[in-house]
Every structure is written in structure tokens, then in C-alpha cells.
């Protein structure tokens, strides 16, 4: 069965840690990092491997820091 797999690349230096993406993710695969970026913000990281590449996180991201990729594994 074909399986959709996704992955996000987060520009962590531009992330402000607002967590809107974390709440928007239907797969619950995003979380806040334990470390901070150069601006002092905790940033979002992909912590789960069940991303489907739906881009919900990127849509609600006010700082346009998320790039989304999606692949169909056959």
C-alpha cells in the first residue's frame, strides 16, 4: 500500500517559537526544542516520524520558516 511520508525543514534561526505550527499539526509530530536560537527563542523541531507533508504547519506559520516535502512510498 502506498504510504505518504513527509518531512519539514525549519529555519530555526528565524523561528519565534509561537507554537502555532505545533497546534496545527494533525500528526502531532512537531515540538519545541530544549535549546534556544540566537534571538533567544525556543524553536520548533520535527520530533515525530509520522509527518504526512500536509503543510498545515507551514500555512499557519507567521514567519514563513517551514519548508515542507512530501513523498509517496510505493
Amino acid at each position, binding site marked *: 500500500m502506498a504510504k505518504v511520508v513527509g518531512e519539514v525543514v525549519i529555519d530555526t534561526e528565524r523561528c519565534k517559537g509561537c507554537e502555532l505550527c505545533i497546534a496545527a499539526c494533525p500528526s502531532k509530530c512537531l515540538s519545541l526544542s530544549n535549546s534556544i536560537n540566537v534571538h533567544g527563542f525556543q524553536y520548533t523541531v520535527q520530533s515525530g516520524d509520522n509527518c504526512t507533508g500536509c503543510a498545515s504547519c507551514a500555512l499557519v506559520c507567521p*514567519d514563513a520558516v517551514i519548508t515542507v516535502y512530501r513523498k509517496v512510498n510505493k
Partner: protein
Amino acid sequence: MSDIVCPENLVYKKPSTLKDAIMHYCPGCGHGVVHKLMMEVVEEMGIQNDIIGITPVGCSVFAYNYMDIDMEQAAHGRACALGTAVKRLYPEKYVFTYQGDGDLAAIGTCETMHAANRGEKMLTIFINNGIYGMTSGQMAPTTLEGAKTTTSPYGRDVETMGYPLRISELIANLPGVAYVTRQAVNTPANVRKCKKALKTALEYQKQGLGYCMVEVVSNCPSNNKCTPLEANKFVEEQMLPFYKLGDIKVPEGK
């Protein structure tokens, strides 16, 4: 990096029309989302060289630092006057104003109403978060009844401070107006709809149908003294019941 991250699998990236500068907005602010959506639409329509934006006074005064298009920064409330002149002088270009609720619904109501009434063929993006952002949390014309702000510390008393103003419903009554819609950016689904509305408005502008307004009900985590998630919950539970989403006016036959 996995084999998923490669160009042929790309489904979403920051539009090239949005500059790389880090936006000064507070974490979670809706301005960033709307800037991004507008620039996505500009990129998709291929009109980066043919659009002029007018920025307001308010938090989004610096929009020109983020949108990679030609922009003019207006005096407080006067964006629609600038927009009128630019559109009249360059009728072949796209023109939009980007204004908050203080800029548009208080000091700039006159300019906005008259530009709309003349049917100026431009778009106004109206960010309504129900509070003054840049000056730190004073009451806006759009502040909800009972809402506490620094200038209505005991809650907005409509008997003495006036009622929250539904600009979009007012504007929709004017014959020069082609399209008025109220959107939000608090959920992925609403973000998608908002983008579609922005694109629709620019298409109507191209067709010369008249003045268009896309109101976006937005948040203000800092001045509502809450987290971005709580601010979006406030939008959902308090703002949207009063500022109902959807098209308020569409051109005939559309």
C-alpha cells in the same frame, strides 16, 4: 537529511516575493501570515513588477521591509488616499493598501469610505485584531463590548465608548464596492480560504470591477497578554461570533 527532502518532493516553501528579513512582529502575530499569503498570491500571479502596496501606521508600518514589491508608507489612516492616486495614475498596475483597525476603522474611515464609494479599483487588506497593537493595547473601534484594554480597563462600555464597528458590513452597502469578504488566519483551513480571497480580489481588480476589501480577523497575543495559542482561541471564541466569516458582497454573477 532524508531522501524525502529533495526538490521534486517540495510542497511548500516561503514565497520568493517575501524578503528574508526577520519580521519584527511578536511571536504568533497574524500580520506575518497575511504578509506571506499576499506575497504567495503575487508570486503565483506573476505580478511582482506590476503591484504597488501602501503600508499604514501601526504594527505593519514596516511591511515594506518584508514584501519584495514597491511600496509607499502612508500617514496614519490615509492609505486609501495614496492608493487612489497611484491607481488613477497607473490604472494598468495592481494597487493595494494594507491597514489595521486603528488606521482604517478610526482615523482613516473617511478616506476608506470615499475610496470605496468612488469604486477605486484597488484592494484593501484590513487586519482586524480588535485592539491597538503598536501603541500597546488601547481600545480600537473594533474592540468587542466588555473587552478590557489599557483605555477601557474596566471593559468597553458601549454606552459611553461606542459600539464595536463592523466596517466590512458598512462598506458592502456602497455601490462602488465589488467584493467584501471577512477571513481569518487562525487555522490551516482559514489560511487557505484567506489566500483564495486575496487572489480573487486581485482578479476582480484586474477585471476593473471596483473596490475590494478583504478583512482578516486576527490576533494580538502581546496586548491581550496571552500566548499565541490563547490569542487564536480568543479569535475563535470571542471575535468570530461577532465578526462572522465569509463573503459579505460579491460581484453580480460571480
